[in-house]
């Protein structure tokens, strides 16, 4: 049985350069979207930097044994972002690269909206706001039994409109869960349009402050910022931590910029050629 401290965060990707890993993830996201003729590519691109740091620098996992008892728990509450998680998991060896081409295909083990039929996927997200509550349960259990794992829940801004979110926020504070980290992706767009045009959930960080959490607000598409924030975000002060990550839907894909109907995007080979060319330029700029 593996011991928690003996497992390296990031596994086989721990020594690979993060910027290259992000580019690699984005290429996988394009590949999946093209194979399915469409998908949640906007979410895949806005979350890539945060997901890369979580999976390649933070989480202690065992891809050979996804059920390893002491593993860190990553809960994707907003199941629509599964496309980015699949990209990260493939690199870590949870499944073969060819599986990416089955994204959302009939009978595939990687569904359009992330569910626990995928080995290594902790929960079935998608019905929004149910992830944080389950994260609270896992964090309480860890405190109660001295389990080493840390619990990270990934959410989105639109999801904060569900009342259950705030029930969980309140209870996490009450039970002093400083082994719990929530990350909310604030891309400003939900299915009906811009967040501020749909309802009054803004401002976000202030609300978490008021509920007594540690609050860190960052540019979620700036890899250096994301890395420096996430590597040291479990603060043992009896409070759970929230990272408010401001991002851009479809970040770096100019075809998607400035559009509001990018929740789900139809996608062709031509779209891929253009997006991959942009990625290649980004790679050159970074080097």
């Amino acid at each position: 049985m593996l011991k928690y401290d003996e497992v390296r965060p990031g596994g086989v990707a721990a020594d690979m350069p993060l910027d290259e890993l992000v580019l690699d993830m984005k290429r996988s996201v394009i590949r999946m979207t093209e194979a399915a003729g469409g998908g949640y590519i906007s979410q895949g691109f806005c979350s890539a930097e945060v997901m890369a740091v979580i999976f390649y620098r933070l989480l202690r996992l065992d891809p050979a044994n996804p059920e390893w008892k002491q593993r860190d728990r990553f809960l994707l509450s907003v199941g629509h972002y599964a496309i980015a998680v699949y990209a990260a998991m493939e690199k870590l060896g949870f499944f073969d690269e060819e599986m990416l081409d089955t994204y959302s295909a009939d009978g595939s083990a990687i569904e359009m909206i992330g569910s626990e039929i995928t080995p290594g996927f902790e929960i079935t997200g998608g019905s929004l706001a149910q992830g944080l509550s389950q994260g609270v349960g896992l964090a309480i259990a860890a405190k109660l039994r001295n389990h080493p794992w840390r619990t990270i829940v990934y959410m989105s801004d639109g999801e904060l409109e569900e009342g259950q979110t705030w029930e969980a926020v309140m209870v996490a504070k009450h039970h002093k869960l400083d082994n719990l980290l929530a990350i909310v992706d604030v891309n400003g767009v939900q299915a009906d349009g811009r967040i501020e045009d749909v309802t009054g959930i803004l401002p976000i960080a202030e609300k978490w402050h008021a509920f007594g959490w540690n609050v860190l607000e960052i540019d979620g598409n700036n890899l250096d910022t994301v890395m420096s924030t996430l590597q040291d975000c479990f603060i043992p002060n009896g409070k759970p931590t929230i990272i408010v990550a401001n991002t851009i839907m479809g970040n770096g894909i100019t075809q998607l910029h400035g559009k509001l109907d990018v929740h789900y995007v139809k996608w062709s080979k031509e779209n891929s050629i253009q997006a991959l060319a942009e990625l290649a330029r980004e790679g050159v700029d970074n080097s």
Partner: protein
Amino acid sequence: MIDATSAVIYSGKDKAETKMKAYGHKLAEVGKINNNILCLSADLTSQTEADIFRSAHPERFLSMGMAEQNMIGVSAGLARAGEIPFAHSFACFITRRCFDQIAMSVAYPRLNVKLVAMMPGISSPGGASHQAIDDLAMMRATPNMNIIDLGEATEVEQAVSLAVETDGPVYLRLRRGLLPVLFDKTKFRLELKQSYLLRRGNDVGIITSGLMTERALQAAAILEENGISTSVLHIPSIKPLDDEGILHLASECKLLLTLDNHSIIGGLGSAVAEVVSESRIKVPFHRIGLRDVYGKAASNAYLYRYFEFDPDQIASVAAQRLEGDRVVEFKTGWDVNQAGDKETGWGEDWKDK
């Protein structure tokens, strides 16, 4: 089907023996043996008898505040970590408010969460807001869910261990407080997917669960006095259901009658109708329950009478249906005050003696 006729210690006449807070005391007792049992409550701790566990094992009691949806999710997370959470609230709140959370966070992943749903149907005097008349319908429609409907002290006590031994989600539908003792605990053994024949007769076959079972035994005694022999089949395990036991009873009676402390839509009566109508058995059939209406705020005694759940009313319906829907001369000898339930509810009888 188990022949439990020798386990029945209540004749259906006079008053049954009673026992106070069978559930709460048992949960605390089982919690002493099994360290993985956790107790969650959403601001209804003494009202769901969870206060007894809280006093006995405070380190394993988790206060969730008045937030049931989150409580279901927290329970799911705890179960994912290997714990056995018992989440407590009133039946109406834990189902209506949390149906999606139960489906997606608990039942789909088949997690080991025990949902303790107190005061179902008109066992609550609190009116439409507090009376779960549709919880069985929701839980029955939820794949992977086990449902046990309980109203008697012996089975309530056994249900705690049964829930712990059952791997996966269990919906415990519990009448609280002062419960009748109808079964000899040395002869009755609660199991999933089981039904219990409490008395045997040729004319009417009554299928019942929960608090209606006491009523069924009383109605059967009245029918017997009027020359109508009656079987009573008690089915605490609403899901999985003992289809064979139901079909056996249906094939051996002249009238099949179901009792539901619930809407007639989606409860035990519906379940029986589904089983019988998929078989080749033809039998006159009648459901007693709330006839597609909400409950109302009143004493239990009033509500039983109002919704025609009293034994003389049940017996009268049975006799009429048996005689081809003719109004029949009928002696009941039933005193509407006999049940003595006028105080049951918010009142003093609730306090531990």
